[in-house]
Structure formats: C-alpha cells, structure tokens
C-alpha cells in the first residue's frame, strides 16, 4: 500500500518510522521490476538502496529533511554521475555521465533516493513517448495508449505508482501533456526558475524542468528543492525561492480566471471540453470569477515553435558527433564518414527531421523568413499573455485537444505537432503552467491547464491544491495499481 501514498504522506510515514526508506525503496523497485509499462531506461537498484540506507541513518539520527528517503524517478535527460544518461537516444546509449546536473545534485543533497532513469521521447522530441530508442512507454490507464511525451516515462511511473514522484522537462508541453494524459499533476515553472545545467538541451530558450506528482502539495514540496538560482546557468534567475507549501491553504476567493476563446475552438474533443468546463465551474463554486479572454496569436504557436525549437536543437545536437563521448559508428573510413554515420545511425527519424528543419531555417537566404520571423511572432504571442494578465490572475483551458491516443496511431509528424496547440505558447513566452487531473473522458484522464504570470508558481500551486481539496480526480488510480 505504500506506493499509493503521496510524497507528503510518505514523508510523515518515514518520520514516524512506519516504514524505512529501504523498505520503501525495495517496494518501489519490486513494483518497477514487475511493471510492463517500460517507464524506465535504467533502474539503479544498488545506488537506490545505498541512498535509502544513508537516508535511514539520517532519519535515525534526527537529521532528516522533509524529503529525506523519498524515492523518485529521474527523467533520463538529467546527467547523473556514473549512471547512463541517454535522453532516450542511441547516440547517447554509451554515455555514462561524468558529472551531475544541478537538479540531480539538489535532489541528492535533499537525501532523496533515485530509483532509476525514466524513459522519454528521444532527446525530448515527441508527444507520445513512442520516439524512444528504448521503446514506447505505455499509459497505465490503458496499455494500448500512449502516456504522452516527452516525459512519458516519468508520467507513467507516477500514474502507475512505480514512483511517488518523477522529474520532467517541458519544452513545448512535455511535463503538462503527459501529466494530463496520465491523470497526474505536473508543473512547468517560469523559464529561469530551475537550473538547466546538466539537463541535455533540446531547445535552450524553451526548456524548463519541473516535477510530476500525484498532488499539487507534492509538487510544491519538490519545487522547494528543485527551484533556485544556479551560477552555472546564465539563464537562471537570481530570485528568492518562496516556500511553495506555505500558501497552499489560502482561499482562492476572488481569483480571476481567464478562458482563452482560442483554446475552446475547433479541434477540441467535446468530451475534453465538457470535463474542462466542469472543472472551471468547480473553481467558480470556490469563489473564483471567470471571464473570456483572447490570445489572438496563440494560433501561430505551432509554426513559431516548430521553427524556434528545431533551430536551437539543430545547433544544440551538433556536439553529438562521435568524437568525445557517445555513439561512434564502426570503422569510420574518414572523418566525414565518422560524422555522417555516427549521427545517422545514432539519431532517430524524428530527431533528424527536426535537425534538418532547423538547419534549413537558419541557413543563408532563409533565416529572415523563418528564424527571424518566428522570433517576431514569438514576441507577439508573449505580448498577448502580457495583455491578458492585466485582467486575470490565471488562464485556464485544456492541455491537450484529446485524451491519450492509441499507440501507433500517428504516422506523420505534422498531426502529432498539431496536438501541441495548447501547450506551446507559454514555453515561447517563458510562463509557468500546470496540468492537474480534472476528470475523465472515454475512461481516460483529462488534464486542466493552469497558466500563470511570470513567477506565479505559488499562485498556481495554491489554486491547484484548493481544487484538489474539493475533488478527488487526482486520487484516482488505474485499475490494478
């Protein structure tokens, strides 16, 4: 039963010696070993048990912190010393990281227990977790369906109760969308809130890490550890980190909610729409006011994102060249051959497509029409939010136009890209956003998206927590858990 508990509950249980961290860790490890979700690329049994033993010692000595001894799944995009860090790609399959990401370091310093490295779409490119070199991840609610992506392994691990929480990264929805599709809570903080150092870059100006948890309260607990300034990351912001748990209990009476009409137009599944509107009603019942708003340029988020992100990734991934680490092809006959074959054999099809789109959009003669134009539209998209937040405190809407789709149902990139319509714009603007369980449609979870102004994580977590105090969607579990 331990696996059904939230981080907050586990923390109490450890403190009260109801169970030890070793027991907890063994329990989760055995669940992982019995699971067929393919949520993990690497399970770090020995390391986990070492960490658990160390945590138990701290607990025994009375030196424990709130998260001491709590196990977690770490998205395989974060570098972890001595542990394979593949980012779901063959090209990094041989990469045993010689250093720790700042997030890894912070979680270690909080005495947490890493169960293993969670599966993900290759190099964080995908919305279904079907693009992993290590095979697709299954949705715990229906194993014929995708868990979403790119943090699909993380979401499936939490939803399947293989881990009390997991780390994720969100470049265009990669925390929120899998959280939504797997019926759990996920938060993408303001850009600059969590250090990107040691997080394998997909699109540097969009990437941001955050937790996937059962509850908003758990997300707040983990955010307290993950967030904060890092002098190794020039884009990290030197700004005090509040105690995110402090104001969770505040009333949200008077909260002004904006519903962007563009998020409720054609393409949105009616079952999802109904679920979202019911959740919004719940907020109204708690004293929030609702108004319609407009984000006129949000419709351009897809072309804008699918230029900006590929441009940045085409350059970010050049370092994966088979020279200093990672995959190198067999018997390269010359340098050219080494580059061409290592990269072609090492990268999957979707990654190659994005690299090529990016290389093209940056190339001589096309830069202005693509890259520069996209950066201007990005500005317009961000201005829309600026205007909207003059009138409302939180923007709400769906995360994804549909619930989780069947594995293998999308055969082309474009239709997959179109499903990102509600999540991309806030990455372009750098704003924080959440997905919280809001109900079900066709027996699959539906996530409600909460978008806040810059640095409003506290407010988002508070609103989410209040919603979760009134509802029990977040407490629902897939059958057999």
């Amino acid at each position, binding site marked *: 039963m331990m696996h059904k508990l939230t981080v907050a509950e586990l923390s109490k249980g450890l403190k009260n010696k109801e169970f030890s961290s070793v027991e907890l860790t063994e329990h989760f490890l055995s669940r992982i070993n019995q699971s067929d979700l393919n949520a993990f690329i690497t399970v770090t049994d020995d390391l986990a048990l070492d960490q658990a033993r160390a945590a138990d010692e701290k607990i025994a000595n009375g030196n424990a912190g709130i998260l001491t001894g709590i196990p977690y799944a770490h998205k395989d995009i974060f570098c972890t010393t001595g542990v394979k860090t593949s980012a779901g790609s063959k090209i990094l399959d041989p990469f045993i990281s010689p250093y720790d990401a700042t997030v890894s370091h912070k979680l270690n310093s909080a005495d947490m227990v890493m169960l293993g490295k969670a599966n993900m779409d290759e190099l964080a490119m995908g919305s279904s977790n079907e693009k992993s070199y290590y095979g697709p991840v299954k949705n715990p609610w229906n194993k014929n369906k995708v868990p979403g992506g790119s943090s699909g392994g993380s979401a499936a691990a939490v939803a399947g109760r293989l881990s009390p929480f997991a780390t994720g990264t969100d470049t265009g929805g990669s925390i929120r969308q899998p959280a939504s599709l797997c019926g759990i809570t996920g938060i993408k903080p303001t850009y600059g809130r969590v250090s990107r150092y040691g997080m394998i*870059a997909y699109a540097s100006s969009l990437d941001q890490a955050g937790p996937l948890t059962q509850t908003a309260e758990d997300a707040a607990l983990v955010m307290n550890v993950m967030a904060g300034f890092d002098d190794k990351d020039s884009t990290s912001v030197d700004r005090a980190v509040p105690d995110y748990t402090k104001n969770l209990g505040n009333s949200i009476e008077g909260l002004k909610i904006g519903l962007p009409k563009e998020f409720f137009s054609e393409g949105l599944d009616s079952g999802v729409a109904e679920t979202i509107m019911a959740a919004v009603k719940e907020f109204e019942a708690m004293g929030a006011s609702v108004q319609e708003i407009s984000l006129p340029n949000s419709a351009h988020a897809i072309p804008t994102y699918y230029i900006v992100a590929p441009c940045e990734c085409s350059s970010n*991934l050049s370092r994966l060249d088979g020279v200093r680490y990672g995959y190198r092809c067999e018997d390269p006959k010359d340098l050219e051959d080494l580059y061409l074959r290592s990269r072609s054999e090492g990268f999957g099809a979707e990654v190659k497509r994005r690299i090529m789109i990016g290389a093209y959009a940056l190339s001589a003669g096309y830069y202005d029409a693509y890259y520069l134009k996209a950066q201007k539209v990005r500005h317009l998209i961000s201005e829309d939010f600026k205007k909207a937040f003059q009138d409302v405190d939180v923007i709400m809407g769906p995360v994804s136009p549909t619930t989780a789709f069947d594995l293998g149902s999308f055969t082309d990139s474009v239709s997959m890209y179109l499903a990102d319509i509600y999540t991309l714009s806030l990455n372009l603007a750098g704003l924080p956003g959440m997905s919280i369980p809001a109900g079900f449609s066709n027996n699959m979870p539906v996530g409600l998206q909460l978008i806040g102004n810059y640095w409003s994580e506290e407010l988002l977590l508070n609103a989410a927590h209040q919603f979760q105090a009134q509802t029990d969607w977040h407490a629902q579990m897939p059958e057999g858990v």
Partner: protein
Amino acid sequence: MEWETVIGLEIHSQLKTKSKIFSGASTAFGAVPNSQACAVDLGLPGVLPVLNKEAVVMAIRFGLAVGAKVNKRSIFDRKNYFYPDLPKGYQISQFELPVVGEGEIEITTEDGKAKIVGITRAHLEEDAGKSIHDLYDDYTAIDLNRAGTPLLEIVSDPDMSSAKEAVAYAKKIHALVQYIGICDGNMQEGSFRCDANVSIRKKGAEKLGTRAELKNINSFKFLEKAINLEVERQQDILEEGGSVVQETRLYDSVKNETRSMRSKEEANDYRYFPDPDLLPVEVDDELLEQIRSNLPELPTEKKQRFVSEFGLSDYDAEVLTSQKAVADYFEAMLDAGADSKLSANWVMGELSAVLNKNQTDIENCPVSAQAFAELVMRIEDDTISGKIAKDVFKAMWQGESSADEIIDSKGLKQMTDSGAIEGIIDEIIANNAPQVEQYKDGNTKLLGFFVGQVMKATQGKANPKQVNQLLNEKLS
C-alpha cells in the same frame, strides 16, 4: 597595367585572462593535453556557458584604446560548423552586435608618413582546440586545452595598400594589445594570429577586386611574404585574362607558397543565430568609466610626451614607444638620472643590437634600466668614452658587476690629464715621421691614423675630443 593592392587584416588576439571565456578552466599554455579542458570546454551534454567578466573588460580596453564605439549592448551568436577541435559543433562568437564597433589607429608608412587605418569592429569569441596531425599515422589527435580561450578578433577596414603597410598595422596592433595588457603577443604560441584579406584592382578603379583570405601566418615576416606572393599570384591571373576566386588560402612557410583551402569551404553556411544559452551583454557607464580610468598611457600619447618632455625626435619617440616594455625601460633610465638623448641613442643602438643578437627582449634583459643608466651617466660625465662603454656594457651583460665597479676594477677611467696625453702624442709624432710628413703635405685623412695610435697607446682611455684637439695643434 598598373595595379593597386587592397588589404584588410583580421587579427585573433588571445586575451590574457586566467580562466576561459565561458568556463572556469585554466588558460595556461603548455599543459598536458586535455588536462585543462573541463566539462564545458568539452561540450558535454547539458553544460552551459557563463561569461568571464575580464574578457569583456579587456575587449573594452581595446575599444577605448582605438577610440572605438563600445556597444552598450552586444550579443553572442553561434557559428555552426563541424570540426573535431570544435567540441560543440559551433563556435560562440559575436556576429551582428560585437562589443567593439568602429575605431581607428595611426600607423607610419614606409616613407615615414602617418596613415590612419580604420578598425571595422572587434568582437569576443572562443578559441578552438588543436588538431595534431603528426602524432599518429592514421589518426588526428585532438587536444582541447585551448578550446574556450578568449579571443578578441580585430577586423580592420581594407585600408592597407602594401604588404609593408599591413605589417606596420599588425605590429601596431601587436604593440597596442601588449600595451594595454590584454594579450601577451606571443606569435609562436599562437597568442596573436593574423589573417589577411588581399585583393587587387586597376589603379584608380573604385570597385574592390575579388579577395582571397590568407590564413596560418604566424610571424610578421611571413605576413609580408604571404601578401606579396598573393598579390603576384592575383596579378598573374588577371594579366592572363583570368579571374580571381574568392577563397581561403593557407600560407605554407616552408614552401613559401599559398594553397587553396577551397575544399574545406565547400558548402560552408555558418547559420549564425543568437546563442540561447547566453543573454545580451550590457555595459553600463560605471563599468565603462572604470575601465577608461584604468587605461594606461597609450602609445600615441606617450610618443607625444617623449617629444615634448624629453626633446626627442619624432623618429626616436616612435621607436621608443612602439613597445611598452622599451618605453618603460627608457623612462626608468631617465628617472635614474641619465640624459634623455644619450639614453635614447644607447637604447636604440647598443642595447637593442645586443638584445637582437641574443634573441631576447627587454623584459629579459640582464642589465636593469638603473644599471644601464649608470653606464650612460659615465659617458655623459666623461668618465669613459663611448667605445669603452661598449666594453663595460659587455661585462655588465655577463653579469660581472655595476658600471662603476667595472670601470674601477679594470682601470678604464678616461685620461683627462692633458700633460700625460701630450707626452704620448709627442712620442707618436717622433716615431712616425713619414706619416707626419704626408700629413703636412695635405693628406689630412691621416689624422685618424694618429688618433688611433694615441687610443692604442692609452688603451682607449684618452678622451677622444682632447686627443683630436691636441693632435691638431701639434701637427699644424
């Protein structure tokens, strides 16, 4: 056909920071391969750059020194290309908005005239690592110690019209970067590297000709040779009715030729775009003023002061201020009490000749400025002659002791007793009757012979002025 040469230079100057431009690894030269390449320099997955303040400060120092516009906001871009010594697959550089904008510098041309050369821009970037081709037969070995060393790329306007002018400009920049303490100027170690853009056009033509970029030039001598070779090559092509291709050419100093690197250039499209890992660099007035107030006296200012304060000629002032270390040495001599003109002559003459002969520079001179000043003062007060002084200097160079001690111990003090000198002269006149006769017959050139005899007899210690005067009296 009369041709006109147009040259612009791109100079890569390694900045003398302790750590790299985007990482905390050391920049020291000559370490064990890859021992100074940290995770950031290696471009490990997930690592991020953080900008070294000192590199920015040094770039601004240069900007202020050439009267350039320092951009209050500059941007780092990525220049994308694949090469094994470029770990990330891109070089972080500045493209659209460099830290230093337009400036200028004055050079002296061959005919001694002053000429202003425009500086288009100077931007910060990271150096690449080194590819070593001769360590293995079948492999190229990569050492990334140099990767991430800060560079200031100084781009000139195409204002030079001869190889000599290009060299004069390069030397001027070379001296300046050392003056302001931003670069050690060591060309052998690659701290200061020149690329030359060379084109020719018909005399009087307005449009620039197609240019070739010459790379891999690691001395001023080679710079001159490479440019002259290239000018000849282009003239041959054009005179035979051909056309010059825009390309990069590698200078081979062993074969003294340039060869095309066109194959490498093929399909090069650098896809510059702002580096999303770095933010715009903002330089506020406070920082700018702080840098300005810490700027040392610049070569031009120093030269003017040497002329006005010490009464030196333009030429001497130019030579003495062309290197900061030389100017500092010279000024230290004056501080110790030596005469300015005599010091100038001795620094530019004997001292520079001996330094040259020993292939060393003034920083490593075994004779301190104070010691050298003492020697010059002994010439000044007629204790020794210039000729003797050269011998004393040799002894000082060998580390024997101070000028006064050497003069004393070797008894080199000049004879100024006119009675004693007269006695010697009388003896010489008596012993050289035929020469005396010839002299009196009008062969006045023989005066030198008599002077020589006197100096020989006195072991050079007689005061030459006095000897001349007495000989003139006695022989007339």
